[in-house]
């Protein structure tokens, strides 16, 4: 449904002064999936959305949306995707109704007025349809902009930070609407820098800062985030120990880093003695044992400091 292969965008400011906004992005998002694209300011989220919606061309690499290739079948892509751009970009002097009619006509939507009416009702804006969009609150504008992206019933929807700048109540409304859209089986590419939002709405999350750093389901990421890790510092390492430790019940994952073994588990107090015994029985020189613990925020930020997260820590 949405696929990217080595997708790269480098902005050239002056000769020799390049900004690598998106580097070597590989992605595969299935039909009906709600994918969270999580990254801090300047990560390249908007740039990625612009490439995937055929607004700007990649410097290199390829991408497909609904089976159409970016750069080759741009018109088809524009016909088949809906975009909520970073700024709602409404025509403030025109009524909500008129704003939507313009887009319905540009997409050549059949029975445009009915479709506009449907979405105005759906988003609770019908009673304000004749008011200029400029008189709307931020939350209403955002809803209007989302309606605008849906008029032609696109299968793939790109939402660039749909709740940023909204108060909690408005954000909640927008989120529950996105949830509904996800339930309707649309493919949704959701850019956000809000962890909890991604957690709640998405089937999978990609953590991104110019490069894709981690991709997984929220449950797995949370495991990774909330799970505890114990580090066993050894004089020398035997790779066979990794497998041995892995057989102990309750051990989630085992990694070897330099002369250390990092073990993910829920219950270090219960398991540590077992692991230590096992290691000693197998001839390990155990120097000391320590725990790695991270808050949600920590992990996220560290993940962003590129892959050597654990390495840097040890």
């Amino acid at each position, binding site marked *: 449904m949405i696929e990217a292969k080595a997708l790269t965008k480098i*902005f050239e400011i002056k000769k020799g002064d390049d900004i690598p906004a998106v580097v070597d992005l590989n992605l595969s998002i299935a039909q009906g999936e709600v994918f969270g694209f999580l990254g801090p300011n300047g990560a390249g989220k908007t740039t990625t959305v*612009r490439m995937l*919606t*055929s*607004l*700007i*061309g990649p410097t290199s690499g390829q991408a497909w949306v609904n089976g159409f290739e970016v750069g080759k079948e741009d*018109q088809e892509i*524009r*016909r088949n*995707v809906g*975009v909520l*751009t*970073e*700024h*709602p*970009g*409404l*025509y*403030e*002097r*025109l009524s909500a109704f*008129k704003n939507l009619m*313009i*887009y319905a*006509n*540009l*997409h*050549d939507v059949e029975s445009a007025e009915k479709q506009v009416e449907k979405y105005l009702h759906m988003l609770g804006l019908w009673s304000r349809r004749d008011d200029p969009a400029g008189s709307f609150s931020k939350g209403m504008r955002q809803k209007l*902009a989302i309606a*605008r*992206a849906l008029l032609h019933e696109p299968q793939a929807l790109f939402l660039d930070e749909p709740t940023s700048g909204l108060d909690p109540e408005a954000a909640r409304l927008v989120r529950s609407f996105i949830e509904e859209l996800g339930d309707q089986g649309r493919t949704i590419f959701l850019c956000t820098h809000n962890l909890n939002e991604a957690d709640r709405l998405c089937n999978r999350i990609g953590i991104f800062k110019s490069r894709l750093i981690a991709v997984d389901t929220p449950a797995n990421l949370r495991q990774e985030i909330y799970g505890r890790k114990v580090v066993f510092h050894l004089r020398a390492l035997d790779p066979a120990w990794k497998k041995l430790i892995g057989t102990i019940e309750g051990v989630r994952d085992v990694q070897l880093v330099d002369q250390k073994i990092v073990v993910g588990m829920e219950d270090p107090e219960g398991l540590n003695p077992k692991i230590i015994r096992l290691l000693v029985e197998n001839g390990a020189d155990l120097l000391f044992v320590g725990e790695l613990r991270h808050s949600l925020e920590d992990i996220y930020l560290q993940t962003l400091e590129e892959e050597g997260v654990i390495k840097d820590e040890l």
Partner: protein
Amino acid sequence: MNFKSIRTIIDKEWAEVFKNRMVLFTMIFMPLIFTVLPLVMLYFTGQEMGDMGGVGTADVPAEFLSACSSDMTGAECMQVYLVNQFLLLFMMVPVIIPVTIAAYSIVGEKTTHSLEPLLATPISTFELLVGKSLAASLPAIIVGWISFGLFVAALPLLGVTKSVINYIAGPTWLLAIIIAGPLMAIASVNLTIFVSSRVNDPRTAEQISTLFLLPILGLLFAQLAGVIVINVMVMLSFIGGMILVDIGMVYLGTSIFQRENILTRWK
């Protein structure tokens, strides 16, 4: 070329633009002034010349006599000479109105970021450009034609003589209003789009783009100074030059009006 998209853009532009007082003011008052001024002038010069019992052809600048037909009296030729100065003012209408509309439209879309969602629809940038150009130039062309029509219609009521009317409704003016006007409108819209992509205040865009009036003012002063006489030949050469300018300006406009360009290079 998708005409529905173009129509949608024109419709949208007009819905927005006619809500803008600045634009509306320019569209109504400028043509009004340019129509009324020459009428007032013709009325009073007609009266005066009547009182004086006729002015000789000797009073008309010698260079200008060629523009008058042989059956005109000196007074009529004098009127033709004076009214010709206003023709050039008239020709400013299709520059100033499109510049005003396009400047407010493009800079407005830029500051509210409304171009990006628009560009995410299947409309081609060329259709978008055509839509915007037509939306900005059609009102100017139509207003120009209407005010010229009113101007000509008012002439007999003010006692302007037949041969002067024939001159005004003759080839020089008709070429200017019907052909040169639209050509200038096209060029000025594209120039404004270029300027608007670089500045963030519609008034600045407007002011810079109206520098485009300089060639017309040049003609005006050249005529006042007696260096040239605006006749059919001059008008045809002006039109020829304008076609070249149009080609250049449309090229400039289309090259600046590309999706990637708009989103990443417009300041």
